[in-house]
């Protein structure tokens, strides 16, 4: 039986094309790779190569024919030992095709009955705008000739789940709680800085695949002294000074994690991690999924995040919502020393990539830590720092301290605030927040970063979705002003959220002014 040559799809969006030119004629011998025709697609004129050896038996489509459907038989090739008599009755379908089988319809990533323009293909320049109605497919040819930059396949994530209620974002979170502290346990005062150092040292003693790398972590003893004395105890093989090369060492850390180690990658500050964010997200967070579960990446990216003091816009950004946005990451932002230690130890043991956001202005603050042997806290559990009945305030990292101060001021005025320290931003413990709002009926979300698309926006959305009927006022957000952080002392103070902003927002949701 002759081999059927089918009209090929030469781009992900092509459904039909014009057979511009035949470059072979019946009787010609072709081998794999020989050009047999030129076809005009929706994007360009392409050469079609033979994929099998044979003698051209018959051309079934005339030169210049328009609207030739993909997978239509366009020519017949005679195999070795066949002559023209084999052509009779061939090419009418149902015969042996050059692909060796039937041609099922293209699977649609969007499910049944809906075609997407180029949204799954190479000319994709973005999602929703390209969505086309039934039948008519719209595509936007790329000036790059088919491949819009270096991005991966187009957005396929907008699939609907069928009719009815839209699915809300799932926060999968294990049901966990803090360990019990035995009666009579002594408390020791430790700075956040030393708590973090102790966490790393304890985990490095426990597991020799754990190592620390970053700029100035070894001989300099840490730019903020968080890795103080680790070099002396563990040596240069496990406490590794890197060149100033964030993108490179973040990627190298990911490779080391694939290779069986448990890297702790310190960024001198998370501002510099923007150079490395491709590896944090594309290489660390997504690979487990892309590998069908084979390629776990146990790595901790840690360092100070958010505004320090008077260092200007480039050195003062809160990346909480950036990382918390990404599936495949865990994101932790502790407030006090006990959480810093217990959660960093948990992060190092976790088999997943963890972004651990510290705060420079908290490093020197001292807090009580229970004096137990192995202080490890669960990732994914918020902590109620102060109970109250009138309003719920959520905060993380340094803002927790501001929220607690605000609560004291408010208490003097008769408003009892419940302060929830989120501690982990992904997975986010919205259960604790929603339960609290069902009690207090009011919500203020405080964060240090910009408000647009922020952590507070997410919490407010979840609370509105899950506790709408319990709310006595619209939730309010407290956050940095929508500007790059200024250097001038007065402008910096105006830009950053503080205790007074929280007090004001709480009074507003309580209709107290």
């Amino acid at each position, binding site marked *: 039986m002759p081999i059927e040559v089918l009209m090929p799809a030469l781009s992900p969006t092509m459904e039909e094309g014009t057979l511009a030119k035949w470059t072979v004629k019946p009787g010609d011998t072709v081998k794999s790779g020989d050009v047999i025709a030129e076809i005009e697609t929706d994007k360009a004129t392409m*050469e079609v190569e033979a994929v099998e050896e044979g003698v051209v038996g018959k051309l079934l489509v005339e030169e210049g024919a328009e609207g030739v459907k993909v997978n239509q038989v366009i020519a017949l090739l005679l195999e070795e030992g066949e002559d023209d008599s084999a052509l009779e009755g061939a090419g009418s379908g149902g015969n042996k095709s050059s692909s060796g089988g039937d041609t099922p319809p293209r699977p649609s990533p969007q499910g049944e009955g809906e075609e997407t323009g180029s949204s799954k293909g190479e000319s994709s320049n973005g999602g929703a705008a390209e969505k086309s109605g039934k039948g008519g497919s719209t595509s936007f040819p790329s000036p790059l000739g088919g491949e819009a930059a270096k991005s991966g396949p187009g957005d396929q994530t907008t699939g609907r789940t069928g009719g009815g209620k839209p699915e809300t974002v799932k926060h999968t979170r294990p049901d966990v709680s803090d360990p019990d502290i035995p009666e009579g346990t002594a408390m020791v005062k430790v700075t956040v800085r030393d708590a973090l150092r102790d966490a790393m040292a304890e985990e490095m003693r426990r597991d020799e695949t754990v190592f620390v790398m970053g700029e100035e972590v070894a001989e300099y003893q840490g730019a903020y002294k968080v890795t103080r004395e680790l070099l002396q105890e563990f040596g240069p093989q496990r406490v590794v000074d890197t060149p100033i090369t964030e993108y490179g060492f973040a990627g190298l850390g990911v490779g080391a994690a694939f290779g069986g180690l448990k890297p702790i990658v310190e960024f001198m500050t998370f501002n510099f991690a923007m150079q490395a964010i491709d590896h944090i997200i594309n290489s660390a967070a997504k690979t487990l999924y892309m590998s069908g579960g084979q390629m776990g990446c146990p790595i901790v990216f840690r360092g100070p995040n958010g505004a320090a003091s008077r260092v200007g816009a480039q050195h003062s950004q809160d990346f909480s919502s950036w990382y918390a946005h990404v599936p495949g990451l865990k994101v932790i932002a502790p407030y006090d020393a006990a959480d810093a230690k217990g959660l960093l130890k948990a992060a190092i043991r976790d088999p997943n990539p963890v972004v651990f956001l510290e705060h420079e202005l908290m490093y020197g603050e001292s807090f009580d830590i229970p004096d137990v042997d192995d202080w490890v806290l669960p990732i994914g559990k918020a902590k109620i720092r102060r109970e109250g009945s009138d309003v719920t305030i959520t905060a993380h990292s340094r803002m927790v301290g501001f929220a607690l101060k605000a609560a004291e001021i408010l208490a003097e005025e008769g408003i009892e605030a419940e302060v929830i320290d989120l501690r982990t931003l992904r997975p986010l413990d919205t259960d604790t927040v929603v339960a609290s709002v069902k009690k207090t009926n009011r919500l203020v979300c405080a964060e240090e970063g910009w408000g647009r698309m922020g952590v507070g926006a997410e919490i407010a959305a979840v609370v509105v979705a899950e506790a709408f009927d319990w709310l006595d006022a619209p939730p309010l957000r407290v956050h940095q002003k929508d500007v790059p952080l200024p250097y001038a002392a007065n402008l910096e103070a105006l830009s950053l959220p503080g205790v007074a902003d929280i007090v004001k927002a709480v009074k507003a949701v309580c209709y107290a002014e």
Partner: protein
Amino acid sequence: MASKSTPSKSAPSAAAKKPASLPVTRDQLTGWYRDMLLIRRFEEKAGQLYGMGLIAGFCHLYIGQEAVVVGVQGALEAGDQVTTGYRDHGHMLAAGMSANGVMAELTGREGGYSRGKGGSMHMFSREKQFFGGHGIVGAQVPIGAGLAFANKYRRNGKISATYFGDGAANQGQVYESFNMAKLWNLPALFIIENNGYAMGTSVKRASSETELFRRGAGFGIPGEAVDGMDVIAVYQAAKTAAAHAREGHGPYILEMKTYRYRGHSMSDPAKYRTREEVNEYRDHKDPLDLARKMLIEAGWSDEDALKEMDKEVKQIVNESAEFAKDSPEPDPSELYTDVLVEG
């Protein structure tokens, strides 16, 4: 150690080599020819399935470059790691991954290496020490350096081989990786597959220094240009480089001068080069033709035996296509699995 690049071995014209003095064994050359043939036929089939709409998205074929990965793989030991970019099908087959599993990933099916969740550019195999399959140009280079870092840390005697193209060779992170790899003398092979074009941009239009093997000179990494169309030349260069890395002398750069016959991806009409240029490689420098010629001239094989081999390989490839078509799409429940390692 040489702190400057060694000059090109000026790509010995392999065709002129005396088969009698082939520096490899019959089994080696026969095996490599078969591996190259498998990649060639596999890629042709993948292109065909793409044309039928069974494979979607990006699909970058390796046809023309087969000798590079097959020759290098011949110089690696079990347990050495391999990492590459998105033109990765050949690397996976050379690493011993199954044609069925790779093809079914291309069609996005449950039987694929990533159970349909990765696609052409994102496949992995812990078992075969294949660490991707990376879609971001150049990202595999620090990852490969990190695998080498882990080898050194664990003193396991393994090396990592990282492949990237002439396009990726202009990414900054490549040089960040070169610096750390040499600074710490990591057991790493960096293999630049210079096929002449970064998508549609020729090397000379994109690179101030077009001799890419020199790119490590500023870091003290030795480099060498190799005729990437000659599997024996590739093997010999890789063997020397691998020994260098394994013995603790640090990284080594091999620039493989090669050529891809097909467009950058399936929808590339490849108008940036002439048909004559493509035909020059295809007709006169083809890595399979060359190996075939050497096998026959050495008296190690004949037309009949090679035809038989071609049949066997085609059978494997056809079976993989059938498997990839028959394997079901992943269960909808797979949507939410493998986001995090649980527990």
